[in-house]
């Protein structure tokens, strides 16, 4: 077993064993500490994954997926299932982001456990969710991918239903049922592909693997619908506002930060990769829906009056930009989607942390009852301003690259439809600015409302520890986008090489 294979196993085994340990260790605080330590070790294990064989040279036809590290073991030989993991430039940034956000959420839980259950159970569930998400990003076997995809569902349900807001049960049920509906489609899609191709190996399948046009169209439709529910793509998004609003702070951060990315990652790696002909066929529809999501998300935010619900809907708009990038099927667009994914995870994660902090302190999330935050808590208001400005896509911060270059990619694609989509998406960017500034004006400016006036100006050390990495990352990705994209150029070019062939 090589060092890289060891790391791949460690990345999954550490959080899994951490979850078990957190649940078994006597004492609530000890459990949370153990869980946080496991999450920290996982983050440390994900970082050296980058140091593999990036070899984009050599002769002959290149494989469409060329992982830096690979682990391929037989798992259920009778069913021809393989435990096949790998990491490359498309998945690695997402893997690191997942590990980072989990550490931050576990660390935050050391300081504050939302009402509803024991802290160590929450940490254990977060770690199980992490296993599922990391597995999804690492899987190179379609069936394995599906399994990890499903692992996430129930623990997330439990997090929302156990530690959430007043209407948590209904929101959790809606989340679970809605995404299960997507999973059913994913299962059918996976088996359509596996049955037709006779293999579940993504490295073989990527590029179409000789699937007939009809199979590809059917497979893409099923897979894309499944991922559209997860991403979410308008009009399959309505589970998201409820789930985000009711989930506890850490749950919202994981949901928005990385769980949604499983949808967009699946779309790029599985749906587009396995059924490229289907992708080409469906691209205009996908692009149109993505732009509809941008506009609808922004307009709903403009009329929204609850803090967390507003941020939740803003995710619909931001993921619309990501999906628009994917839909263009250009290298620029897919790279914009990748960096948009990361930026959204960082900035919306930060926004949910801040919204949770404001809601916890003021006791309300209603925009009508919040105002004048900069009078009573200038630092909190400053951080909210930073995250909000980042989220409106200000150049120099992380959000800019994904949104601006989704538009550029649509222009690059050319033709009446795509130019129209580019114009509408750019207008959506202006609407995004409108609702973000409306949010800031309501919450931070003006005279302090009674709910805000009694806030203490200070921030807890745990809060600063959890937020600082996200603030720095938002700035770093904005100033040095190559942090995310330099590794992705090769894999994206290879993927699109087979897709547009």
């Amino acid at each position, binding site marked *: 077993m090589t060092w890289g294979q060891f790391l791949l196993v460690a990345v999954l085994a550490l959080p899994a064993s951490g979850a078990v340990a957190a649940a078994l260790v006597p004492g609530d605080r000890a459990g949370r500490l153990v869980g946080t330590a496991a999450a920290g070790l996982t983050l440390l294990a994900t970082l050296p994954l980058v140091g593999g064989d990036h070899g984009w040279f050599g002769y002959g036809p290149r494989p469409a997926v060329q992982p830096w590290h690979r682990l391929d073991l037989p798992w259920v030989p009778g069913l021809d299932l393989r435990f096949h993991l790998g990491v490359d430039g498309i998945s690695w940034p997402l893997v690191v982001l997942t590990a980072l956000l989990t550490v931050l959420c576990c660390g935050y839980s050391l300081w504050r456990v939302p009402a509803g259950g024991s802290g160590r159970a929450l940490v254990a569930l977060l770690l199980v969710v992490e296993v599922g998400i990391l597995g999804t990003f690492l899987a190179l076997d379609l069936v394995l991918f599906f399994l990890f995809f499903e692992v996430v569902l129930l623990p997330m349900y439990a997090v929302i239903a156990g530690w959430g807001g007043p209407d948590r049960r209904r929101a959790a049920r809606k989340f679970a049922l809605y995404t299960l509906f997507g999973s059913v489609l994913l299962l059918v899609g996976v088996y359509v592909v596996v049955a037709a191709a006779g293999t579940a190996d993504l490295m073989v399948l990527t590029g179409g693997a000789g699937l007939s046009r009809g199979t590809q169209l059917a497979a893409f439709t099923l897979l894309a619908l499944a991922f559209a529910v997860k991403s979410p793509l308008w009009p399959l998004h309505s589970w998201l506002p409820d789930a985000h609003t009711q989930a506890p702070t850490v749950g919202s951060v994981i949901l928005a930060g990385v769980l949604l990315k499983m949808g967009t990652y699946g779309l790029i790696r599985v749906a587009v990769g396995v059924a490229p002909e289907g992708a080409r066929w469906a691209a205009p529809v996908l692009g149109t829906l993505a732009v509809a999501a941008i506009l609808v998300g922004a307009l709903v935010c403009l009329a929204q009056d609850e803090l967390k619900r507003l941020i939740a809907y803003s995710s619909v708009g931001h993921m619309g930009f990501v999906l628009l990038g994917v839909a263009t099927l250009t290298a620029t667009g897919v790279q914009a989607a990748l960096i948009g994914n990361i930026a959204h995870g960082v900035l919306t994660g930060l926004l949910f942390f801040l919204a949770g902090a404001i809601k916890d302190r003021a006791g309300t999330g209603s925009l009508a009852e919040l105002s004048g935050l900069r*009078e009573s808590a200038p630092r909190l208001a400053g951080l909210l301003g930073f995250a909000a400005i980042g989220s409106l896509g200000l150049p120099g911060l992380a959000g800019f690259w994904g949104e601006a270059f989704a538009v550029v990619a649509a222009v690059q694609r050319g033709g009446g439809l795509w130019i129209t989509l580019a114009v509408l998406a*750019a207008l959506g960017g*202006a609407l995004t600015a409108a609702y973000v500034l409306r949010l800031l004006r309501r919450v931070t400016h003006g005279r302090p409302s009674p709910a805000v006036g009694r806030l203490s*100006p200070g921030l807890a050390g745990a809060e600063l520890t959890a937020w600082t990495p996200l603030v720095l990352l938002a700035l770093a990705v904005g100033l040095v986008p190559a942090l995310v994209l330099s590794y992705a150029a090769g894999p994206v070019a290879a993927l699109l090489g087979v897709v547009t062939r």
Partner: protein
Amino acid sequence: MTGLLAVTLPGVPLLVGLLGLLLPPSPAGAATGADRARRAAITLGVAGAAVALVVAVLLMLRVDGPVEGSTTWVDLGGLPVTLGYRLDGAALLVAVAVSAVALAVQVYSIGYLRRGPHDDVDVDHRYPPYAAQISLFTAAMLTVVVSGDLILLLVGWEVMGICSYLLIAHDRRLPEAPAAAMKAFLVTRVGDVGFLLGIALLGVGAGSFRIADVLAHDYPAGTLTVACLLLLAGVAGKSAQFPLHTWLPDAMAGPTPISALIHAATMVAAGVYAVARLYPLFAQAPAALAVLGVLATVTLLLGAFAATAQDDIKRVLAWSTVSQIGYMTGALAVGAPAAALFHLLTHAAFKALLFLAAGAVIHAVGTTLMSRMGGLRPAMPVTFWCMVVGLGALAGVPPLAGFWSKDGVLAAAEAAALDGTGPAPAWVGWLVWLGGLLGVAVTAWYATRLLLRTFLGTARMPLARPHDPPAVLRWPVLLLAVPAALLGLAAFAPWFADRLRVPADDSGPAVELVHLAPNLLLPFLLLLAGAGVAWAGWRRDPAADPARFLGPLRPVFARAFRLDDVQHALVVRPTTGLARAVRAGDELGVDGLVEGSGRAATALGAGLAGLHRAALPRAAAAVLAGALLIGVAVALIGVAA
């Protein structure tokens, strides 16, 4: 060395600004701690601007022709984005102006944002974030000025927008400030939709976002015209051109030094500069230039007329900026980017001077309304004479700076009109020329009115004890008076004129910025007429406002032709209405379908469950009926088989 300096130019203010944001924003309680944070903020802010000024001057002395340098920032699928600079004479002159005004503003703010004797006890100016945001603002503008890549230019462009937003909303005692800040950002952002799309078109067409590559690329005429028009949308937003000018007068809610910064050197100058930077593209798109010419003329007259009826001294100056930027874009439209940049530079000097002097007046009398000023001259002689220089330059009194630069614009427009020398059709020249001449008279009128209403006549607020400002406010004003008076003469130096040439290459004729010709007399006569009418009106009754002669037009001018209401009715209200409708549709329609299908499934289940909960006789009958049905089916299938 040049490369290092070029990076330092925006880099130092950026670094200083980011550091300043880390200082405690509102040091509560402990007076010593507060003082330390404030002192640190002052040091950082002033040092950042001073370093930028020194570097800009050094670069101007070193750099002659265009110098470029770049490194790849990120490669997005074959579209490289570079991190590069592109220096030429015009860029460095503008950079010097930007950093000089920024330095003046940083110094002036020390005195202006200090707890005064009249202030409430709990006034907290939040100086550290304020100074840091000015530094970021300066860095962003300098980025726009030296950037060699369109995406990098866009970065500076938008960061400038957000800094203006933050600074306009800075004064927490003004209830209108947050709305004004939001309006400033949103209106410019709407323009930036076009700017982004224009950049995308140009970059995709050339396969690179480097300005050098974009300028060298041969675009199809249609693409070029569309791209230039899209860029103009962004320019109209930033440079407050009709119809996206509405944010600028409201932005007066910001502290006065910020108004000086926005109006003189940053923000509104950026649009004009961007067009001048990309002028070779615009020169090939006469349709875009014609549109620009129309917008420029409308803006020029709109701003001048709106300025005639304002009572707020800062709003008069704000509308005068709108009008003066109209002259610059007019010069661009008639094919004279050098004249536009020259006017940009002189305008930076005299408008910064005017705002800072107006700030001194506001500081002294505690109001911005001219109806409550008057008779300030004996008490504030320094401010008065500085204001005279500034207003004279604004109106174009020879030999002050504005006279020469405005004359350059008018001469270029005249040549375009009479000889058809511009890249745009001759009628654009006529439009800009005649509009510009009318603007000269109106400008003279409102400048005279401002001076008379503020400094002459009798004091209308006898209780106030006005005085010239303290040294930290006085020196920036005095120093700015020098270029406001003399910068126009620089046009006679070939060294200066050559640097303003755009595109800065060896081809093309030497730029003539000043025209000593008999037709200089025409604007001069119009100036005398405008000023004379205002003076005559004031003489008749020094206590009354000369604006009363506007008659029924006065309220129309005062509200700037009610374009704010038009914007509200055509854009703001439909958007909010649409937002409410979409929200309702999303919650009731899309989510209603989801919830409905859930409820329907539950109801169906409950119904089926209800059917199964039958009493024994009916259940027995149902079982027997089922058995019978199955039997019949089996029998039928058996027969068929």
